[in-house]
């Protein structure tokens, strides 16, 4: 269970390795799919995931690409690169991301946190040898996780439907402008192919354990990924206040209690688990 998070974090890193053209193309394609899909052909529509049929296909496509392309290359990278190098490279790109974190701290009016993150960036860039060593962590300056999608959430923009983007993985309607902004604000996006490739390889390599965890734990990897992604994003957007989850538990629980009382009455209203739609509770 502890690995859920690292999986998603790394997936997020993957999301940020953006090919703008693909993104835009996909947005258009998905928009097209969305309007042509007849709603009555799905028996049960999950409110957070109205495009499940399309999403599942893209998920399978991504998984195949990962199995046959990304994973073998990443394994080779891991085999030839010593662990301290992998950690160093991860730290380097992670440090560059801090610029983006600071921008979003400010956009969300988290000035104190913004100051701490600026200090962390300064420390790691100088003493940490351009970011290869995470000095901030050893002096207790933990990295904050902020991005533009969270900023949009804080500004009150609704999350929108869950989307699986070809090659990039899970996102939401709100996540697309989020990713575009974050990509534009990240220096890694401007350095060209060899560095980008190392970035992608490293991200895949550090996601290894988490991806393995999904394979092991998930009965339905598509749903597992979707639910953990949405819950994780929701948790970040509300800054770790798991209020939604607690309410949710009570609702899930009361379903069972009320089911006991009205035991033999057939369920008339059979919408699939309305309680599960966290986004409704995320303001």
């Amino acid at each position, binding site marked *: 269970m502890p690995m859920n998070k690292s999986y998603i974090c790394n997936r997020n890193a993957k999301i940020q390795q953006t090919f703008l053209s693909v993104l835009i193309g996909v947005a258009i394609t998905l928009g097209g799919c969305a309007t042509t899909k007849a709603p009555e052909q799905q028996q049960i529509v999950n409110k957070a995931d109205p495009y499940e049929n399309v999403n599942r296909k893209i998920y399978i496509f991504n998984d195949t690409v990962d199995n046959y392309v990304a994973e073998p290359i990443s394994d080779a990278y891991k085999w030839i690169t010593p662990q301290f190098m992998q950690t160093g490279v991860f730290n380097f790109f992670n440090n560059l991301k801090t610029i983006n974190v600071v921008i979003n701290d400010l956009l969300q009016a988290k000035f104190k946190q913004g100051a701490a993150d600026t200090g962390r960036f300064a420390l790691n860039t100088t003493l940490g040898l351009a970011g290869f060593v995470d000095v901030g962590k050893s002096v207790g300056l933990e990295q904050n996780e902020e991005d533009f999608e969270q900023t949009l959430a804080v500004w009150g923009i609704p999350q929108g439907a869950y989307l699986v983007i070809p090659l990039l993985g899970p996102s939401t309607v709100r996540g697309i402008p989020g990713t575009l902004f974050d990509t534009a604000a990240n220096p890694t996006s401007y350095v060209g192919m060899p560095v980008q490739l190392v970035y992608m390889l490293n991200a895949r390599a550090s996601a290894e354990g988490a991806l393995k965890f999904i394979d092991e734990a998930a009965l339905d990897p598509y749903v*597992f990924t979707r639910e953990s992604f949405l819950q994780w994003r929701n948790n970040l957007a509300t800054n770790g206040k798991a209020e939604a989850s607690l309410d949710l538990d009570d609702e899930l629980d009361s379903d069972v209690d009320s089911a006991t009382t009205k035991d033999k009455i057939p369920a008339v209203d059979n919408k699939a688990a309305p309680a599960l739609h966290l986004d409704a509770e995320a303001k």
Partner: protein
Amino acid sequence: MVLKNMRLAIVFIFCLFSAVNAFAQDGSGATARQVVEKFQTELIAVMKNGKQLGYAGRYDKLNDPVSNSHDLTKIARIVVGKEWEKLSEAQQQKLVDVFIRLSIASYAHNFKDYSGESFVFDSEEETARGGVVVHSRLLIPDDKPVKFDYMLKEKGNSWRIINIIANGVSDLALKRSEYTTILQREGFDALIAKINEKIDNYSKQ
């Protein structure tokens, strides 16, 4: 005489009261926090001997701690949601059985060794519907701590875990989405087959 009788009666009532009190503390008085901490201690102990025990050993050692601290029957029921009522009694029993085995197996598989981890208690709060949430953290050397929030409900006169929220991701909600989706798309037999396959895989690694 009357006075003496009264005194006796008072002494008797007092004794009775304290006996009941003592009984309550002894048999069922474990608070939600105590239930969680007992389970965490047992889990860490198994992790410390994880390598020698092997998968089968860990499974045996964790069987009672997991079953006694979690309300696995209730969890199995919540996890399939409204589909529960559509299952026959035999199917319900089968689901509960494999679910219990899966829960223990996943603990035995995922907590296989020890590298200095420890749990710390943070706080405790009551929820609207009479549940208790115990907030704690798993400290991992050289890594970010993982937040573990345990949601407990009273069962009879003891507290049982019905959900674990790790870093904001609710295990119950996650499982519920998976299980209801599989039941709706592929049916009951497919669900049981998938669970058995997971248990099998856990035991092999």
